[in-house]
């Protein structure tokens, strides 16, 4: 009799727990939210030129004519926030087999300019923050796959191991670059390559100069209106990246700044990154 009672109790408990978990999954409604990145140079849509081309579509505020042959950046650590405490953090995973939460946005890969966040808890959102670049926590995970695999096109510095967070390459009328021909590669005359990297965030010791530069920057953007996330909706945020703001903001003069391949030289460009990304509009 005792055993029978015990079994009955067990069955009731089991049934109850399974019902409970069913209920939970129903209340946790989720939806998607898409970030769309569009690249501009001032008022013109960015178009890529062949490397070394001397046709210049664009001009800086100082009147320096240039074109772009390569453009892109890493987006990571995306967070959405809402006016009444809604919060979503895009999952970050760095391993050899799988990488999640890191996006390599490239001008010449249109699909990379759309980042779809899924399983966002239903609610209202009015703010997105993300990082441009790959920060220490990810670098220190060691060799990684996916968009962080250097053999698959990841932008990586071997000698000062870490990722290039933002890169611009092209040709400029005033560039001081001379033609360099190597074994199977060339650097065209008047070309430029501005690579922004550097992730070491080490506090300055007393009596010492700042040695390392952390060029991984956080971008925080407010939406023009609240966005509702629900399973039946398809909201998106249209973010405009204006390269001219970067070049003008950092007062780039191609005669001198045509080859940036180390953290310190990239710092002035990284400092203006927060002004380069703006929310153009949102779609509900």
């Amino acid at each position, binding site marked *: 009799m005792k055993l029978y009672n015990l079994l009955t109790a067990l069955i009731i408990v089991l049934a109850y727990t399974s019902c409970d978990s069913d209920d939970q999954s129903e209340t946790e409604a989720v939806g998607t939210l898409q970030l769309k990145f569009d690249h501009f140079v001032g008022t013109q849509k960015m178009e890529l030129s062949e490397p070394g081309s001397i046709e210049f579509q664009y001009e800086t505020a100082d009147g320096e004519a240039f074109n772009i042959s390569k453009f892109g950046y890493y987006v990571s650590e995306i967070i959405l926030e809402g006016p009444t405490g809604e919060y979503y953090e895009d999952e970050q995973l760095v391993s*050899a*087999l799988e990488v999640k939460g890191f996006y390599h946005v490239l001008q010449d890969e249109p699909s990379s300019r759309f980042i779809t966040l899924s399983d966002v808890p239903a609610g209202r959102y009015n703010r997105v923050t993300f990082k441009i670049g790959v920060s220490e926590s990810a670098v220190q995970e060691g060799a990684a796959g996916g968009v962080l*695999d*250097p053999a698959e096109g990841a932008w990586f510095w071997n000698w*000062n191991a870490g990722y290039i967070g933002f890169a611009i390459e092209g040709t400029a009328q005033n560039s001081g670059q001379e033609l360099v021909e190597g074994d199977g590669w060339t650097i065209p005359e008047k070309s430029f390559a501005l690579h922004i990297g550097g992730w*070491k965030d080490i506090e300055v010791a007393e009596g010492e100069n700042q040695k390392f530069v952390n060029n991984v920057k956080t971008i925080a953007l407010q939406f023009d209106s609240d966005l509702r996330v629900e399973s039946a909706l398809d909201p998106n945020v249209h973010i405009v990246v204006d390269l001219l703001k970067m070049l003008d903001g950092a007062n780039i003069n191609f005669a001198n700044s045509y080859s940036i391949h*180390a953290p310190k030289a990239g710092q002035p460009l990284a400092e203006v990154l927060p002004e380069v990304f703006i929310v153009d509009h949102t779609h509900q």
Partner: protein
Amino acid sequence: MNAMHATRLPIWWVCCLLLLMVACEEADEEAKSNNYKFVKPRHFPAPTYNFDKNPITKEGFELGKKLFFDPLLSKDNSVSCNSCHIQSTAFADAQQHPLSIGVDNRVGLRNAPPLTNLAFMPEFFWDGGVTHLDFVPINAIESPFEMDEKLASVVEKLNANDEYRQLFQMAFSVDEITSPLMLKALSQFMLLMVSANTPYDDYILGDVEALSKEEVEGLSLFRQKCGDCHSGELFTDFTYRNNGLNTDFKDQGRALITESENDVGKFRVPGLRNIARTAPYMHNAMFTSLEQVLDHYDNSIQHSPTLDPTLEKGISLTENEKSKIITFLNTLTDHDFRSDRRFMNQQ
């Protein structure tokens, strides 16, 4: 007849025998798998490598070893990791290669350091530009002075090789080979290169007989004269210093990484385990013997703005003291490590 005989054995006896056999087999298995287990010597600091992210397995280690010895990693299939990192010299370069020799006999810029106790290192290379062991081999593979190959080409060559595909499948359960898995396998191989079995270690761990009187005197002198920089059980404080080798720095050393003029001409304080076997010495291989090294500290320090303050006046050493220090340094040679069969290229 035999079967008949067996039936006469008491059942408990057979059981005991079976149990014993199983136990023995388990012990054997355990001993075998222990060869691939990372064991921190008890007097060593905590490892810096995160083993949770790359647990060492027999398959991963053996794959890493095969890669380490395979010239497929280089552009023209002529140079392997082993070309500049040889077990008999604690995985430093051969003495006749003061600077590393790459494809087409290209001469490198620095002396290839030994590959021991890498699991405990916070940074790698003479300038500390790499902060994770996984990323170390990329530099050797892609350097035009070393293997001059692209990481993507190595991955392509590996994927075209059925044996490698099978070995990666066994080690990581994947059908496709990728660069991070290749680097993780190489790390597994290098992480087990722990050198901690020397007369010095026996002495430190309590065997007072392990060192001779002269060696103990050498140890004491070493601590007094060299121990500020070559501190701890790895004999380095992991700092970067200008030790007065020259006044004109074609190789800027640490300043390449920090971009600070205060670091021009500074290089990593190297660990000294197996030091008697890793000649020539210094990043530029300018000394061929330990005698020359100690003579340098005694009377040849070159002054420049970034010279280490502790070396302003050099380190004054008598000939007798030098001799005793060298006697002590010889006790840091780990013969078991140099002949450990796990690291040998045997099939």
